[in-house]
């Protein structure tokens, strides 16, 4: 579903991501772990087609993000670490705008917006302007917008930040549902307990370089993920 080959991205003299390669298969939840400034967001943004990279290739569903960015973007949904959503729109206007861009059919968008906004308990707030939303509500809105077009690949940067426990549980359920339907998820997190329980595979990045990746059981062995992570990054 997502194939990253020798991805390299520099900002000035600093290499934010250095020769990183990863392969995420359909049905897989892939966790991406690293310290602050390790290069997680740069990698995720490159995969989402937001950031241009210096060298390497990224394939989404067999399509190159460089050659066919629009084709790739149709298959993915991206949620950033800080959901800065249009404050001049109401929640429902934003969701309808996203559905328009993805050309989601009228009946399907109504059904999905209804379903996901009910799940995240945001329905009654959809007429409110986004400017009145809390961080958690904006995060929920970003999540709902991500599910409207039923993406094949979900790329998320710290998706659980700001969510209440119930919403966090709902997100995990939806992640599993998407993967059981053949989709894939690539997300970053600092909550190692979540990564350990939720992810099929894990990659650990340090100073732009991938230091370990593979199935969760193999990466952590008999230790906890926290111990493994601390050993590897120190």
């Amino acid at each position, binding site marked *: 579903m997502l194939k990253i080959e020798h991805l390299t991205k520099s900002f000035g003299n600093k290499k934010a991501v250095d020769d990183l390669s990863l392969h995420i298969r359909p049905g897989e939840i892939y966790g991406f772990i690293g310290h602050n400034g390790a290069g997680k967001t740069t990698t995720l943004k490159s995969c989402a087609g937001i950031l*241009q990279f210096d060298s390497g290739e990224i394939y989404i569903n067999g399509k190159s993000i460089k050659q066919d960015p*629009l084709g790739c973007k149709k298959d993915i949904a991206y949620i950033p670490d800080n959901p800065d959503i249009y404050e001049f729109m109401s929640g429902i206007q934003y969701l309808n705008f996203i559905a328009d861009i*993805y050309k989601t059919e*009228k009946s399907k968008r109504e059904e999905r917006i209804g379903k996901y906004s009910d799940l995240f308990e945001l329905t009654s707030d959809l*007429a409110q302007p986004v400017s009145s939303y809390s961080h958690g509500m904006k995060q929920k809105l970003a999540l709902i917008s991500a599910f409207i077009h039923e993406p094949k690949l979900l790329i998320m940067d710290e998706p659980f930040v700001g969510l209440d426990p119930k919403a966090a549980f709902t997100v995990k359920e939806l992640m599993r549902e998407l993967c059981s339907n053949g989709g894939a998820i690539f997300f970053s997190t600092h909550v190692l307990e979540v990564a350990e329980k939720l992810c099929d595979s894990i990659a650990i990045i340090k100073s732009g370089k991938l230091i370990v990746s593979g199935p969760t059981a193999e990466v952590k062995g008999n230790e906890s993920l926290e111990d493994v992570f601390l050993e590897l990054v120190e």
Partner: protein
Amino acid sequence: MFSALLKSRFQAMFSAMFRTSKNKKKRGIGFKVLIGFFAVYVIACMFFVFGMMFYSLTAFAEIGLSWLYFAVAWTVASALCFIGSVFMTQSQLFDAKDNELLLSMPVPPSYILASRMVSLLLINYLYEALVVIPAIAVYVYKFGAMSAAQIICWIVACVLLPVLVLALSCLFGWLLAAIASRLRNKNIITAVASLLFLVAYLYIYSKAQYYLNMLLENGESIASAFKKAVFPAYHFGLACADGNILSLLIFAASCIIPFALVYAALSVSFIRICTANKGAKKIVYRKKALKTSGTRSALIKRELSHFWHSPMYMLNSAIGLVFMILGVVYLGIKRDILVQLSAQMPEISGLTGLILCAVIVLLTAMTCISAPSINMEGKSLWILRSLPVNSKEILEVKAYFHIAVCVPFVLVSAVASAVIFGLDPISSISVIVISLAATAFTAYFGVAANLLFPKFDWISEAACAKQSMSVVIAMFGSMAIAFIPGICGFFIAKSYGTVFVYLFAGLFYIALTILTRLFVVKKGVKMFEKL
């Protein structure tokens, strides 16, 4: 602690002016020189305007009413300071993004408030200087050297003048914030209120000469009214004109006491004001059928929504359109006088169409909807970048939206002015075509300017819409470009007639539009994707 707060305020102000958005790199020397020239130009214009005004008012001093001369200076300086700072107090004092951060620190709220008020006071001093420097310079030029007591009084009085204004603008800003937070349609109300304010300002400005004459003709009665009604102005006048220390003390008290009261009141309630739960009623969503749109239509609707929900963006970028409509109304009312005037000037007879065309083109140059439109994306730029939409389409839509908003206004003003002045069919069609072509050029030129000067880390949308470099470049660049067909046209008209001028200007703008569009859709797309 207080000096650290002040330092952070000044750093924020200078950073906003002299650093670019990307990685906060320092602005180049070229940018600073450009800003310097622009600042000198604006200051020189203001000095000239106020200098001429005060030169007329020296008549007061000649009839023994020197204090009234300075009282008028106080009134004008206070009005300028008030207008300049009243809309900033709300955003700087109560809606500042770092209020909650600072309030969480062991910093007394009174210190936070004082540091913000000092930065506002400095801005007020700049406004005051624009009025007071020409007033004093003209006075000294006309009446020669002054006594030491007068000089001391001038300095102290001028230092104190903005203090009273600041107290009033803080109070007014607080009231505005309190009222605005409880309104549901505050965008429309703010836009209408600002528009009315602008119309009132233009009306008073157009009558400036009349008011000046009225002041001069009714000096005695106005002086007695000032004495009774505006006693700070009266004592400011006496202190400056005669070096009257008692008046200076009364003026000082009239500035410091209200300021101290407002400062004390705001200090006590600062936390409550900053953290107040805004009182707008919640709108509960009821599920209903959704309207679908195509990609382009959705993007245009999004631009419209952004434009409509930001009164400052709307008013600042569409000011040329407001002038167009006001101009048409003015032409309609004053048609006879203007026709008579043009009949008295044979050198411009036959050039009415060209002049109307030039005016409309200059007003389209003042309309900068597309110029800050990329900046306005701010931190939400990731949305457009992650969606399956062509970058070319995004940039084109920004230009289309500009054109869509402008076209009705341009058409109405072009057609109405052609009808009012009874232009022949060729001139009428030419005015319409050239105005539309200039509108299209301004739209793409604005997008190009924004691609060349992007800035996403603005503090308020108002600052982004008003102070972006792209807006300055688009507005003054479009105006400067308008002079090319204007000057060339003047020579062509003499030799070949007005039809050739229309043809030249039309082709000039069509060619420029094509070239600018090519830049936007070719190089601009790559620049946008690197943002």
